[in-house]
């Protein structure tokens, strides 16, 4: 596949790793905030290529993992309504709510369907005028234009049996929250290349200045990630502050203006709770009042569903990079992909799931 496989050549990736090892002198902790990057790093073993001085931590980069537990409960409540076809991305189906997940709801008779795109949900709505179609609008800024587009297209086509259950989150406020935490040990960030494709990276320049750190916009293929890591370590060694764009084939400083316009037409910024972390002000998106008739929470009256988190689950600390999954007492014992306590064990990008799948063999219980 063009523009994919060229960035996966082992020799080239390893030569960047060698350059990285020769540049790194001091100890550095770099955080990536993108589930897709977590996945690539684990799948291709890229963290094994890093020199011991460089530590890579996985931040709250997976929207599946950070969707608040009560939103899962609300989703299940909506899905259980007789007349509803509940559409969702596949990632969300096994995320545990207070007592069930969407897959269990489906097994019990709810019409829950996996879709590839929000437009598929709009099409299902058009084809089923007697039903109510609800789409679980989860994601970071990358997915917001698609969800905004789907809402606007539904309005333009006069489709009124379509609503969205919104759980959008924004990356920069999360970075602020992580850096403002007293025990934060992060020296630099890799910024998510597809988020920045949409938003651009001006907002990250401000973050880099405020926290005196380098931020490198990174892609998702092994070569992209290693080159971004190299640029990051070089900047750290040189005391440089600011944003570098190492995914320039897709990311421009100003981002994608028509996509951003669609997002601001349909959504507005709101405070949002991040599962395992808590409330981060201005870190989410909600539908604007003029699109209230597309709001599933309003249509189905589920806004007052609140929830309790598992006392045992330490996803929050994992998501902030404060502990490794293996340091959680429940890891691999009470909490496994088959019986997840928290979202980080369910999503294939969740740090706990990634560790379990790919590192379990090297980590025996008790080590």
């Amino acid at each position: 596949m063009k523009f994919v496989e060229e960035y996966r050549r082992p020799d080239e990736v390893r030569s960047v790793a060698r350059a990285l090892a020769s540049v790194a002198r001091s100890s550095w902790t770099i955080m990536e905030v993108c589930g897709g990057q977590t996945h690539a790093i684990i799948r291709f073993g890229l963290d094994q290529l890093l020199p011991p001085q460089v530590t890579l931590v996985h931040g709250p980069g997976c929207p599946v993992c950070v969707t608040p537990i009560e939103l899962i409960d609300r989703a299940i409540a909506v899905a259980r309504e007789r007349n509803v076809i509940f559409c969702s991305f596949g990632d969300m189906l096994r995320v545990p709510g207070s007592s069930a997940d969407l897959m269990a709801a489906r097994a019990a008779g709810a019409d829950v369907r996996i879709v590839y795109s929000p437009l598929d949900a709009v099409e299902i709505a058009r084809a089923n005028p007697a039903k109510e179609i609800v789409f679980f609008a989860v994601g970071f800024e990358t997915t917001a234009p698609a969800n905004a587009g789907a809402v606007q297209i539904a309005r333009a086509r006069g489709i009124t049996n379509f609503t969205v259950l919104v759980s959008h989150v924004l990356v920069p406020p999360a970075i602020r929250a992580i850096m403002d935490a007293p025990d934060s040990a992060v020296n630099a960030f890799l910024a998510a290349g597809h988020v920045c494709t949409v938003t651009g990276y001006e907002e990250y320049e401000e973050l880099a200045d405020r926290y005196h750190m380098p931020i490198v916009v990174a892609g998702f293929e092994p070569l992209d990630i290693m080159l971004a890591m190299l640029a990051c370590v070089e900047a750290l060694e040189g005391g440089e502050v600011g944003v570098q764009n190492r995914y320039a084939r897709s990311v421009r400083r100003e981002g994608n203006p028509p996509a951003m316009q669609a997002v601001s037409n349909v959504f507005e910024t709101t405070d949002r709770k991040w599962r395992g972390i808590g409330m981060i002000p201005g870190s989410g998106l909600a539908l604007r009042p003029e699109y209230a008739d597309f709001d599933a929470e309003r249509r189905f009256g589920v806004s007052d569903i609140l929830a309790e988190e598992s006392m045992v689950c330490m996803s929050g600390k994992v998501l902030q990079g404060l502990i490794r999954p293996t340091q959680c007492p429940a890891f691999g014992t009470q909490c496994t992909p088959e019986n997840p306590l928290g979202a980080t064990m369910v999503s294939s990008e969740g740090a706990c799931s990634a560790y379990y799948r790919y590192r379990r063999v090297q980590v025996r219980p008790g080590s």
Partner: protein
Amino acid sequence: MCLAIPGRVLRIADAPEGQTPSPLSRTGVVDFGGVEKQVNLAYVPEAHVGDYVIVHVGFAISTMDESEANQVFTYLRQIEDAAMESSAGT
């Protein structure tokens, strides 16, 4: 959030078949290494047939800058050359 892959634009239309055009209805067929899929192109008004676009959940979010794509390898070459020079010098 992150799963977006590059594909080549094969055809472009103002709207999917059977639908009236609207501001966000620009659509196309994109080829991903042999698999073709209909993709919304509203956010890439500059994309033409033959261009590569990056697609996330059925929407193109950027047009691939092919010269930047090749720049990666130029940068890589510089790194490899620098490494060779420094090892030759030791």
